[in-house]
C-alpha cells in the first residue's frame, strides 16, 4: 500500500451483494488480516481505480446500522470513529439493495452524518424492471447530496462508475450531514453535547454517548463530559428511538420523490419456496435430507484428493531422505516438517467441500430458513438458531466453526455454542474412526443392505451431535451468566449462488484453517519428532544393544532396523512419557504405545494413526511389510494373550476420541474468541474427564 492510495471502507446491510462488489473491485488482490486488538477478520483488497490511482478497500462486516449488537458489527463503529490518520477511511462506499432501498438508506444516513465523503452504490439494478422499480437518479443525487451509482455487481456492470465516483468524491473531499440529529429531537440537549468539542461532528459525539466507544484522540476531560450525558440512560435510549424514527421520516420524504415501486409486479417465488422450506414437516425432512447429501458427498469426493496428498507427501519425504545428506537436519525435515505439513494439508479436501456447501446454503438464502426452523429447538438447549451454522461447520473443523459464532449477539448463547462445538465429529477424527472401525467391526451387511461399518460411523456422528446438545443443556442450566437473548434474522430473497463469491468464500475459510491450525500442528509435529527421536543418556546405547542382542542375530537387515526403531521409541522421551501414564490408562484397556498416540494426538487427532505406524515401525510403501491395519490387527496384549485391538479396547478408544478435547489449535482459538484461558481449560478438562469416564465404563462393561 502506498501513501497516495485512497482508503475506502465498504459498508452495507447483509444480503446486499457487498461481497460481490468487493470481489469485483479487488479480484484476487485481497488478504485477510486482523484488526488490532480484536479478533474479527479484516478483509482488505487493492483496487485499480484509474491508471494512476489505486485504492485500498476494506470490507467491513455487514450491518443494519452503526449501533452494534454483535462483535462483527462493532467493528464498523470502531473503524468509523477512528480519528487516527493512518486508519480512518478517506471515502466510505455504501452498498444498498435496490429492492430494499428504504431500509438500506438508514445506514447510509447515519454514515453521512459522520461527515466523511460517501459514495452510494445501489446494487442489483438488473432486477429493477422485473420488480417494477424506477429511480430518478439525478434527483436522488441532489437530495442525498452525494455520489450515487447504479450497479449490478454480479453482472459486473457499473463497477467502473463506482471507481470514478470514488475518485471524484475523494477529490471533492467535502461532506455534510444528511439528517442532523439535533434540531428535531431536543435542540438544547444536543447544543450542550456539541459544545464539548469541535473536533468531532455532532453525530460522532452522539455515538460516543450512546455506544460508550471513545476514539483514542478524545481527551480525559471530554470523555468525562460525554459520560455525564450517559447518566440518564432512559433519556439516551428514548432519543435513540426518536432519532431512528426521524431518519426514516427524512428517507421517506426523499424516496417519495425519487423512487417508485409497482407492487403488482412483485413475484411470489419467495412465498412459494418458503412454503416448502419452512413447512412444519417437510422443512425438517428437507434439511435432514440435505445434511445427508452433504456428508455423503464429502466422503465420496474427498477420498481421492486426500489419498493424492497423502501419497505425494510420502514421496517428497522419501525423495528428501534419499537425496539429502544424512543427519539431524534431514531427519527433522523428513520425519518432522514434511509429515507435519502433510498432516495439515490432508484435511483441505474435506474442509473445502463442506465450506462449499455452507457457502451455497448461505448465498441462496436457505440458511436463514434453517435458522428460523431451528431457533426454538436450539433455545431449549441454551443456544440460538444461529448456532446451527457453527455446529454444521464443526463437522469439518472446529476452528472456522468457532469463528462463525460471532454473529450470535447473546454472549451466553455464543459461549455455549463455542464450548460444545468441539463435540461434533470433525474431519481429524475420521482417520482414527476409520481404522478402529475396520479393526473391530466386521465388514458385513445388516438388514441386507446397510454396511455395518458405515452404520457405526453414522452412530459416531450422531453421538457427537447428541453430546453437543446435551452438554449445551447442562451448561445452559449451570452457567450463571446474565445476557440478554435477542433474535432478529432477516429472511433474504432466494438467489442463485454466485460462483465467484463462493470460490472466494471457500478459499478464505480454507486459508484460515491452514494458517490457524497449520502453525500449531506443524510446531507440535516438530516437538513430537524431537521427543520421539531423543531420550535420556542411555538412549544412545539403544541401537548398539539391539544389534548385539543375541536374540536378534538371525533377523534380516530390514527387520533389525525395525527392531531398532521400536526400541529407540520405547526409550525416547515420549516412550518414557507413555510408560509413565500407562498405569492411569490401563483401566481403559490401553498400553503405553496407545498412551503415546494419545499424547501425540494433541497436535491433531489423526496423528494417532501416524504415531501407531511409527511405533509398529510400519513402512506402508513397501508391499512386503504389513500395512498399519494388519500390524494393529496382529498386535498381541502380552498379559492376556489376546489381540491388543480387540472389541473392548477399540470401542473404548472410539468413545475416547469422540469426547476428548485433543486439539491445541481449537483451544487456542477458544482462548482468542473468549479472551480468557478459563473457557478453553474448562473444555480441556471437562471433555477429558468425560472421555476418561466413558471409556472406562465402556471397557469395563465390554471386557
Amino acid at each position: 500500500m502506498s501513501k497516495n492510495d485512497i482508503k475506502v471502507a465498504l459498508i452495507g446491510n447483509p444480503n446486499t451483494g457487498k461481497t460481490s462488489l468487493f470481489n469485483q473491485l479487488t479480484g484476487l488482490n485481497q488478504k485477510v488480516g486482523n484488526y488490532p486488538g480484536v479478533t474479527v477478520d479484516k478483509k482488505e483488497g487493492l483496487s485499480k481505480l484509474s491508471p494512476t490511482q489505486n485504492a485500498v478497500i476494506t470490507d467491513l462486516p455487514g450491518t443494519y446500522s452503526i449501533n452494534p449488537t454483535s462483535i462483527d458489527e462493532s467493528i464498523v463503529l470502531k473503524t468509523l470513529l477512528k480519528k487516527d490518520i493512518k486508519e480512518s477511511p478517506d471515502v466510505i462506499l455504501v452498498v444498498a439493495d435496490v429492492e430494499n432501498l428504504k431500509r438500506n438508506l438508514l445506514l447510509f444516513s447515519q454514515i453521512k452524518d459522520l461527515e466523511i465523503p460517501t459514495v452510494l452504490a445501489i446494487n442489483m439494478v438488473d432486477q429493477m424492471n422485473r420488480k417494477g422499480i424506477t429511480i430518478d437518479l439525478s434527483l436522488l443525487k441532489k437530495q442525498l447530496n452525494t455520489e450515487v451509482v447504479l450497479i449490478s455487481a454480479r453482472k459486473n456492470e457499473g463497477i467502473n462508475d463506482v471507481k470514478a465516483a470514488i475518485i471524484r468524491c475523494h477529490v471533492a473531499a467535502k461532506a455534510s450531514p444528511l439528517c442532523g440529529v439535533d434540531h428535531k429531537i431536543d435542540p438544547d440537549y444536543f447544543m450542550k453535547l456539541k459544545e464539548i468539542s469541535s473536533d468531532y461532528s455532532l453525530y460522532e459525539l452522539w455515538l460516543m454517548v450512546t455506544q460508550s466507544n471513545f476514539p483514542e484522540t478524545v481527551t480525559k476531560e471530554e470523555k468525562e463530559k460525554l459520560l455525564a450525558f450517559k447518566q440518564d440512560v432512559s433519556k439516551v435510549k428514548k432519543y435513540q428511538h426518536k432519532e431512528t424514527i426521524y431518519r426514516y421520516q427524512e428517507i421517506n420524504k426523499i424516496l417519495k420523490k425519487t423512487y417508485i415501486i409497482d407492487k403488482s409486479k412483485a413475484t411470489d417465488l419467495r412465498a412459494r419456496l418458503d412454503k416448502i422450506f419452512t413447512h412444519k414437516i417437510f422443512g425438517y425432512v428437507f434439511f435432514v435430507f440435505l445434511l445427508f447429501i452433504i456428508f455423503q458427498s464429502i466422503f465420496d469426493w474427498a477420498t481421492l484428493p486426500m489419498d493424492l496428498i497423502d501419497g505425494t507427501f510420502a514421496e517428497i519425504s522419501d525423495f528428501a531422505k534419499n537425496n539429502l545428506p544424512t543427519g539431524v537436519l534431514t531427519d527433522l525435515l523428513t520425519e518432522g516438517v514434511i509429515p507435519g505439513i502433510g498432516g495439515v494439508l490432508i484435511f483441505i479436501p474435506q474442509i473445502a467441500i463442506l465450506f462449499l456447501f455452507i457457502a451455497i446454503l448461505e448465498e441462496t438464502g436457505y440458511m436463514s430458513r434453517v435458522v428460523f426452523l431451528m431457533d426454538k429447538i436450539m433455545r431449549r438447549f441454551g443456544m440460538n438458531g444461529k448456532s446451527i451454522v457453527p455446529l454444521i461447520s464443526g463437522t469439518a473443523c472446529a476452528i472456522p466453526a468457532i469463528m462463525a459464532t460471532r454473529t450470535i449477539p447473546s454472549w451466553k448463547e455464543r459461549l455455549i455454542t463455542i464450548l460444545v462445538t468441539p463435540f461434533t465429529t470433525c474431519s481429524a477424527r475420521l482417520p482414527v474412526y476409520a481404522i478402529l472401525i475396520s479393526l473391530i467391526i466386521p465388514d458385513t451387511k445388516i438388514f441386507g443392505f446397510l454396511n455395518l461399518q458405515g452404520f457405526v460411523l453414522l452412530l459416531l456422528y450422531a453421538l457427537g451431535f447428541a453430546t453437543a446438545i446435551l452438554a449445551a443443556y447442562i451448561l445452559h442450566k449451570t452457567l450463571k451468566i446474565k445476557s440478554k437473548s435477542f433474535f432478529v434474522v432477516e429472511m433474504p430473497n432466494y438467489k442463485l449462488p454466485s460462483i465467484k463469491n463462493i470460490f472466494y468464500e471457500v478459499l478464505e475459510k480454507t486459508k484460515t484453517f491452514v494458517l490457524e491450525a497449520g502453525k500449531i500442528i506443524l510446531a507440535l509435529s516438530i516437538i513430537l519428532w524431537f521427543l520421539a527421536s531423543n531420550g535420556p543418556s542411555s538412549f544412545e546405547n539403544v541401537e548398539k544393544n539391539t544389534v548385539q542382542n543375541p536374540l536378534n542375530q538371525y533377523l534380516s537387515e530390514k527387520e533389525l532396523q525395525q527392531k531398532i526403531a521400536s526400541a529407540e521409541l520405547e526409550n525416547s522421551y515420549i516412550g518414557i512419557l507413555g510408560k509413565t501414564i500407562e498405569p492411569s490408562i490401563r483401566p481403559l484397556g490401553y498400553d503405553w504405545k496407545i498412551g503415546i498416540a494419545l499424547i501425540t494426538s494433541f497436535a491433531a487427532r489423526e496423528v494417532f494413526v501416524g504415531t501407531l505406524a511409527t511405533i509398529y515401525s510400519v513402512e506402508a510403501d513397501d508391499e512386503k511389510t504389513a500395512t498399519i491395519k494388519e500390524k494393529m490387527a496382529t498386535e498381541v496384549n502380552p498379559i492376556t494373550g489376546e489381540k491388543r485391538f480387540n472389541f473392548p479396547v477399540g470401542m473404548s478408544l472410539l468413545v475416547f476420541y469422540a469426547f476428548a478435547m485433543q486439539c491445541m489449535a481449537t483451544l487456542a482459538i477458544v482462548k482468542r474468541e473468549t479472551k480468557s484461558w478459563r473457557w478453553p481449560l474448562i473444555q480441556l478438562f471437562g471433555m477429558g474427564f468425560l472421555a476418561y469416564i466413558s471409556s472406562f465404563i465402556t471397557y469395563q462393561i465390554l471386557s
Partner: protein
Amino acid sequence: MLSKLYSLSTIATLQKGEIGYISEESLDFIPLKLLEMGCLPGAEVELVQIAPLKDPLYICVNGSHLAIREETASKIQILKVNSLDV
C-alpha cells in the same frame, strides 16, 4: 364506531397471512435494532409464517422480511382491522 373496526393486540396474536398496524404507543417497547430494520410505529406488518414450534414468527414490515421471537412480538402492540362481515 372506531373501536369496533379496530382492535388492539400484539404481533404475536396475528394469524398467518393477517395484517396489523404497529401502534404509536409501542415505540418504547420495540428494540432499537428492530426499529432500524424498519419495524416502525404506523407501519403495516404482515405475519408471513409461523415456525413449526410456534416460535419464531416470520413477518414482513416495510419491505423487510424478518424472523423475530414470540417474546419480542408479544411486546409490539398493533391495531388489527376487524373483519366487517361479523
